[in-house]
Structure formats: structure tokens, C-alpha cells
């Protein structure tokens, strides 16, 4: 993965597969504290303790067509190589929370990348799941909430091209606004 936003897309796919109806994606950047935190929290089916203990193992996967499962290990690695910490909490029937921290100025911290593209890809293909994406930079934040979008759209699908373009620009412009600079 070349961007953290791709890790986020990948981790959120697990939430969709877990049958989540709501996925919260939180990105929090605090430049004064040199910190960045990314969390993906879902209300999907969750995992029991035995499964949870194995998901960070690259040689564990729920799939049967191959023997490796690299999504979670990749994200963990991205965090740890940037001086951060990784955690995953889950309980059957309650959902899963994946959280990773990073040193903001660490040379090995991957760029966040195109979160607008990640968010649009997620809402384009998963009508049954809502995504609440909150992005905070130095205490200023904005939220993109697909439940709000759907309420306005009254049945017009989120995959509609004009809607996709709106959401993409909405995220880009708001990200620039709160970061006081160019969209990464």
C-alpha cells in the first residue's frame, strides 16, 4: 500500500463483509503533539477472542482460496514503522474497532493520500452500509455522513455520478479548509 487511505479502504472492506450497517472512520491529526490517529469502527458481527488473537498474523485468513490475509498486518506495519501503535478490539455481535497511531513527522509515515477517493469507492458499491467519516486537524474537524447524504437524496443512489462528484469535492474542499492548505 502506498497511501494510508488505501489501508483504510481495505480495513473498511472487512467491516462491509462483517455485515456492518454503520462504519465510522476517524482521522485525527494533532501537529503540535506530532500525532496522527486513524480508527475504523464498525457495528458488524465482530469476532471471538480466538479469532481476534489471530487477525494480526499474516498467515491467518478467513478465506479458503488462499493461505494469507495481509490487510490487517499491513495496516499494523504501517503504524508501527511510523513510531505508532496498533490495536484491534472486537466482540461477537458488537462490532470491531481498529485503531492505529502514527508519529506525524516520522519519515516512514505514509501519506494519508486520497481519502475522498476512498470514501467515494466505499459508498459507491455498498448501498447497505453507511459511512461516517470525521477528519480532524489541530482541533478543527468536518464530517461526511452518508446517512445525511441519503436523507437529502431521497432515494437517488450515492453511486449517481453527480452525487459522487459532489461528495468527492465536499471532502476535498473541507479537508483543505481545516488543514489550512492543499489537499494531500
Amino acid at each position: 500500500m502506498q497511501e494510508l487511505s488505501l489501508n483504510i479502504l481495505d480495513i473498511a472492506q472487512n467491516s462491509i463483509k462483517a455485515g456492518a450497517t454503520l462504519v465510522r472512520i476517524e482521522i485525527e491529526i494533532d501537529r503540535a503533539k506530532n500525532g496522527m490517529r486513524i480508527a475504523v469502527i464498525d457495528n458488524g458481527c465482530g469476532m471471538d477472542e480466538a479469532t481476534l488473537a489471530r487477525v494480526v498474523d499474516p498467515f491467518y485468513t478467513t478465506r479458503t482460496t488462499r493461505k494469507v490475509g495481509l490487510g490487517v498486518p499491513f495496516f499494523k506495519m504501517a503504524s508501527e514503522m511510523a513510531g505508532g501503535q496498533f490495536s484491534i478490539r472486537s466482540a461477537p455481535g458488537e462490532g470491531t474497532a481498529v485503531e492505529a497511531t502514527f508519529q506525524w513527522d516520522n519519515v516512514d509515515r505514509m501519506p494519508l493520500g486520497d481519502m475522498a477517493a476512498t470514501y467515494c469507492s466505499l459508498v459507491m458499491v455498498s448501498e447497505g452500509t453507511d459511512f461516517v467519516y470525521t477528519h480532524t486537524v489541530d482541533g478543527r474537524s468536518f464530517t461526511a455522513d452518508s446517512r445525511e447524504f441519503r436523507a437529502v437524496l431521497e432515494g437517488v443512489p450515492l453511486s449517481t455520478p453527480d452525487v459522487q462528484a459532489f461528495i468527492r469535492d465536499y471532502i476535498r474542499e473541507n479537508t483543505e479548509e481545516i488543514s489550512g492548505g492543499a489537499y494531500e
Partner: protein
Amino acid sequence: MKSLAELQAIKEKMKGSIGLREEDKNCKRIVVGMATCGIAAGARPVLTAFADEVAKRGLTQDVMVSQTGCIGICQYEPVVEVFVPGEQKVTYVKMTAEKAARVVEEHIVGGNVVKEYTIGANAK
């Protein structure tokens, strides 16, 4: 700054023009592999390119763009499967946004498989 008021305007424009697409047999399907292997290899821009291209050509009622997980040929990602009713499934491999535009033009619209992008032409 964009506001939800703009989204309201889009809805007003789209309402009426959106017939609920039947989940039907006549719908062509473009399925992009979006598992870890696909995403790492560049599936996100491929998915976006297919959606854009289908929209640009006004085909959203006839063509469905969707995603799937890993189909077990990770070395060929990004992998895209195209289902045209009444025809055999076509598996395209090592896709890019540029290749996506050509697949829509030649295969989806023109009815001719882009052979050089298929797994048959690329498998060693």
C-alpha cells in the same frame, strides 16, 4: 465551500430521471476485485474509472459497476470481471484506469472483448 444545499439541487435534477434499475438479466456487470491484493495493486482508480466512463456515456441504467473480494489470482490484480448477459464471463487482468476506458468503449459498448487485456492473453 460545498454544502448540502448543492446536494439538494442534484437530487431535484436527478429525481424522475432515475428509474430504479432492475437487478435484471439484461444488465451488464463490471465487477472490480477490491480485496487487499486488488487495492494494493491499484484497484481504487480502476473502480473510479469504470464508474466515470459508464456515467460519461450515459450507461448507468444498463451497466452495473460493483466490487468483489479476492478471487485467488492476486498476481494479476487489479482484476476485473465483465458479465454480459448470454455471453461467457471475461476476466481482465492488470487493469489500469486507461485500460478501463478502452474496455467500456470496445467491450461494453462495441461488443468486442479486448483480448490483449484478458487473463488468457496474459497468463504464463
